[in-house]
């Protein structure tokens, strides 16, 4: 399954690992903040509606 990367295995794998970590971190952070803001907003809207 794993292709033979020869003497550059470390190089290629670390490049892939680093990029994928960065991409995943970016998406995860975006989603995490998105969720939180959405929840907070919902809470505030509910509160304001209740209070008038």
């Amino acid at each position, binding site marked *: *399954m794993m*292709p*033979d*990367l*020869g*003497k*550059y*295995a470390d*190089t*290629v794998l*670390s*490049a*892939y690992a*680093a*990029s994928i970590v*960065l*991409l995943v*971190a*970016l*998406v995860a*952070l*975006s*989603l995490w*903040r*998105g969720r939180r*803001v*959405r929840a*907070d*907003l919902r809470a*505030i*809207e509910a509160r*304001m509606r209740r209070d008038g």
Partner: protein
Amino acid sequence: MSLWEYANPKKFLATSERVLPAFWALSGLCLVVGLVWGFFFTPDDFRQGSTVKIIYLHVPSALMAINAWLMMLVASLIWLVRRHHVSALAARAAAPVGVAMTLIALVTGAIWGQPMWGTWWAWDPRLTSFLILFLFYLGYIALWAAIDNPDTAADLTSVLCLVGSVFALLSRYAVNFWNQGLHQGASLSLDKEKNVADVFYQPLLVCIAGFVLLFVALVLYRTGTEIRARRMRALIARERAGAA
């Protein structure tokens, strides 16, 4: 039905909510297909060996790093001219994505440089101008973060983006003048020799598409987040006005 309708936050939220799943799915698909194709099913380059596989990450991220800045520039102009909040917020939302792309390009490039050029970093024009771009991103984000009032922040960052773009272009020329680098030479082996290029080219295109779609998805999603955060601010202010 004009495009400006989406400048209405509500409309924007509703529409982006509808199309987002498709973008997420498509971008994920393209990325997986392109990267798997590139990683597992392409031959090694005769000179660079297996390191060519890095190209599937390096080139798309480099492209998107530049395009993200261009998108911010356009959004800033729209904000300055037509004052649509969504457009300012979209610029704000794009900046961290741009930073991440720049970082990926820098990191993969540096890792690639170690075997190819024998050094992690060289002051090659293309590399250097990327570093400068990175600094611009940092400054832009720091300015957004430093200002409380969102409209003031939008105005200031927009002007910074405009002025910064001009200076980024200037730096590009300056850097070229200052040092003829390594990078072009390395990339020529792929560009010019068509016979090798094709094998790498097709998965590369898929990867580029994946990055573009991912960028769009992220920016849409993050713009939504910014809009909500902004609305939350407005609501808190309104509550405060009621209380005071």
